[in-house]
């Protein structure tokens, strides 16, 4: 079990609602090994994004434990969890989440600067080159197409060489062809950097490209995770 990069033990998430408390996620246990690719699938409202948020340390479970790269998150403060995210985690979102006032290269530099890396600009330029956006480094998000914006977001996610990369519906806002290209890029970078990829999607074709599927239904794990490959 030494090469486990992500482990969730009996995690649940309950929130208060006008009708009483509501369980969004119930007793989920999940382990992901280094270099693995995992797709979290399920219908809308099944709890996919909640699970992703808990696994990435963006939110705390009501019960249960989560650890990333061997660090137990429930023991940490918000700042502690932020430090773990900064060191080990990368994100790609459905709506790209680029900062509109920053150029493409500045957006990619942001996580490096937060980690106080002195070579931020050079590393960001290299990351943008990897996603084929060298001619666009000085462009602002609104000057880029949706596909280009997502490529900037992917460059930003990989630039810190994270142990785990979380992707939330990465093709959700893109047309099929562009989405296909973005997926190719995502998987290629995942292979070449040796990182672990955890993605949330309702796109079965995209899920099928992952090594493992984890299906959720109304907050519950549907079946033991099936190993599709390696």
């Amino acid at each position, binding site marked *: 079990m030494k090469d486990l990069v992500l482990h969730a033990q009996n995690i649940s998430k309950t929130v208060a609602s006008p009708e009483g408390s509501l369980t969004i996620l119930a007793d989920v246990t999940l382990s992901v090994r280094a270099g693995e690719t995992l797709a979290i699938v399920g219908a809308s409202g099944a709890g996919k994004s909640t699970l992703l948020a808990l696994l990435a340390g963006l939110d705390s479970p009501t019960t249960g434990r989560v650890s990333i790269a061997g660090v137990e998150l429930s023991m940490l403060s918000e*700042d502690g969890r932020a430090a773990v995210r*900064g060191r080990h985690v990368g*994100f790609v979102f459905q709506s790209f989440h680029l900062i509109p006032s920053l150029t493409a290269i500045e957006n990619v530099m942001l996580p490096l600067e937060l980690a106080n890396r002195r070579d931020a600009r050079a590393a960001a330029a290299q990351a943008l080159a990897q996603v084929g956006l060298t001619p666009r480094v000085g462009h602002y998000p609104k000057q880029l197409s949706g596909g280009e914006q997502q490529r900037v977001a992917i460059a930003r996610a990989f630039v810190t060489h994270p142990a785990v990369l979380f992707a939330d519906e990465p093709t959700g806002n893109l047309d099929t062809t562009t989405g296909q290209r973005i997926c190719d890029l995502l998987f290629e970078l995942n292979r070449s950097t040796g990182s672990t990829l955890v993605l949330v999607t309702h796109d079965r074709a995209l899920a099928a490209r992952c090594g493992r599927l984890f299906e959720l239904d109304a907050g519950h794990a549907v079946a033991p995770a099936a190993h599709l490959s390696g």
Partner: protein
Amino acid sequence: MRSRLPRIFLADFKMRALRFALRNLWRDLKSGEMSVLLLALTVAVLSLTAVGFFTSRIGQGVRAQAAEVLAADLRIESSSPLPARYFTQGRTLGLATAQVESFPTAIFNGEKSQLAAVHAVTSSYPLRGKLRIADSPFGVARSTDHIPKPGTVWLDARIVAQLELSMGNAVRIGATTLRLTQVLDYRPDQGTGFVNLAPAALLNEADIAATQLIAPGSRVTYSALFAGTPQSVAALHDYLVLNKAAGERLREVEESSRQLNSAIDRASRFLNLANLASVLLAAVAVAMGARRYAARHIETVALMKCMGAAQGLVLSISLIELSVLAIFAVLAGAALGYLGQWGLVWLLHGLIQGALPAPSFAPVVIALVTVLAMLVGFALPPLLQLKNTPPIRVLRKSVDSAPLRYGLSYGLSLAALAAILWALVRDVELVASVFLGVLGVGAVLALAGFGLVRITGRLRGGVGVAWRYGLANVSRRGAGSVVQIVAFGTGLMVLLLLAVVRNDLLADWRRSLPSDVPNNFLINIRPEERQPLNQFLQVHGLGQPAMYPMIRARITAINGVPSEALKITGDVARGYLEREQNLTWAADLMQDNQLMAGRWWTPQDFGKALVSVSSEYQEALHLKLGDRLSFDIAGESLKVEVVSIRKVRWDSFRPNFFMVFPPGLLDGAAGTYMTSVYLTPDKRPALARLVREFPTVSVFDVDAILSQIRAIMDRASLAVQYVFLFTLVAGVIVLLAAVQATRDERRYESAILRTLGASRRTVLQGVAAEFGALGFLSGTLAAVGATSIGWLLAHRLFSLEYRFNPYIWILGLVCGTLLVGLAGTLATRRVVNTPPIVSLRED
């Protein structure tokens, strides 16, 4: 090594925060994100410093004019010769000095004589103000820098008329004979009280020995006059307070003239009111700007936290950004403020006599502290909330950080602002009224806003599509609309309030001193002269003014304690106890008098031993209702009970008295009567005839002090109008902040509407309808607020009659609708003009 690590980490953290903050600030400034905050802070500093610089200079200027009443900045008087060391000390401190010896004596022209107050002066007299002389009695006067040459004398027109003198005639004063060369029209220190009743004679101090009138036992008042820089005057003041002997009386500018002080006090209240309004408006804009800043940065913060940014880093970045902004605003605002006060000085150059002193830099410090208080109070709460943004917001926009309690922080910073403004204004009542007024009206605005928003929502059924969309927006935004109504309403209200102050209050103030206000007092009218004098006045077209009996009396005891044994300190209070006062009786409360406590008498009280005292008298002698005062009236003892306390408007220039008794109590004791008349320049010759026909009646001319007060009124209204400009700018910034607050939401809505097929025109009409409705609602509430606070200010602070002004309502409604409607639509136009796809993609 181990201990150095955290320090290196800390330094590293600070550098990182600084780097991020500076870069963010630059971007925010470039994109206009910070414009409202920066503008609001700069205007607050501009207003504070311009008014601060200006008042510090004009204060000195006005003080210099007030100093005229003493003919000096500082004056010490005594009935025995003043020690030479006072003069030495004054000269050592670099002060100019002069000496005056005053005493009553008879002046003779052959067999005819007239009682006069002789003033022997040294060549530097007067140190402040100018003497005025004329070539014939009651003739046209001109200023002079000289004093009578040795061997000559300048006499009051009444003496010249009474002794039937011509220029060049010789008069006898004591053992010497002096030649009359000029008619003395005005001495700066002739006073505004009724102390120097006898007409004056001015002569050179060199001639005093020859008169042989100063001998042991003669009634001489020796005065030493000093003038110079405020620091030196203050230093001498301290020296004299420590060293002066009993019986020596120090007279300062502040207490030199009740009327002038009253006018200056009002002038500074007007200025400070305008200043206060600017700062409050700027605070509203800062609060709104900071909330928008936080709202605009919330996504970025969530993303940064997602990528590992600690809360401390997020907060540090915001704090550094705001601090740099504050420093920038203070520097820019203070520089503009400095230029602004020069504009003011230029504007008033004709009205200010002499060179103004350099402004003090204290206003910059006050501005810095104010800006910090505004930022900490109004900008920090949203930033603290920003720091707490949960990172999960990147996945779910609906997740917000726990709401902060703004109330406490806003309350604290309002308290801090109030404290700063109090330090500035030193007027608890002014600060409290304006603050409570604005807060009260803010609360009423919020409540009324809720009501109006609900009603507006119901109205939308019967109007066109654009209006329906607009009105629906007003009611749908609910709390947002109320915030906007409160912001617009507060801004409009403060502007309307200033319009009230500027026009109504200033006009009322001017009206309180109309052009035909009495400029000559007639005193010493014997009871039997009342009838003939009345006839004389009527014949010469001078009307039939009321005549007040005048009794000279001294307080001998309060509540049975002899005045010598009373533990009352202070020159003013001792003066009230030691000197004879003018008393009168009246059946009705005099015009310009306001009852502050107790009751006014009814006919049943006539003849009873009661007294009504003025508030100055009551405060100085710590009197309360029911106290018993004993008087010595021409050797007779009289005990009376204090039944009322009056606030007297001394700057009304009508006869007023510290103490008033009911009719029937002192009828037998009435020595003389007094009255006041208004004389136009062409009727001045009638005075010469009056003096001849009624030789014992003294004429007291207050034209000079009247024009001084009118000059102060003019200056104050000009200055208030100028400072009003800053408030106007602050008001516009509030408007801008309120419009900006919903801009993002509007951008998205407009894009959706246009995507659904609405024309640009329809969307714009809807926006215009929404802002027009908001403007109308805020205008209505602003007019209510401005009228109420205006009434409160007029009554409580300025002691003026408030007249209902319908224009405020018209102005409020029309300006509110047009200004907010137009500004809102214009500011949103760009949003509506943006192609929908761009707006939708950006969202």
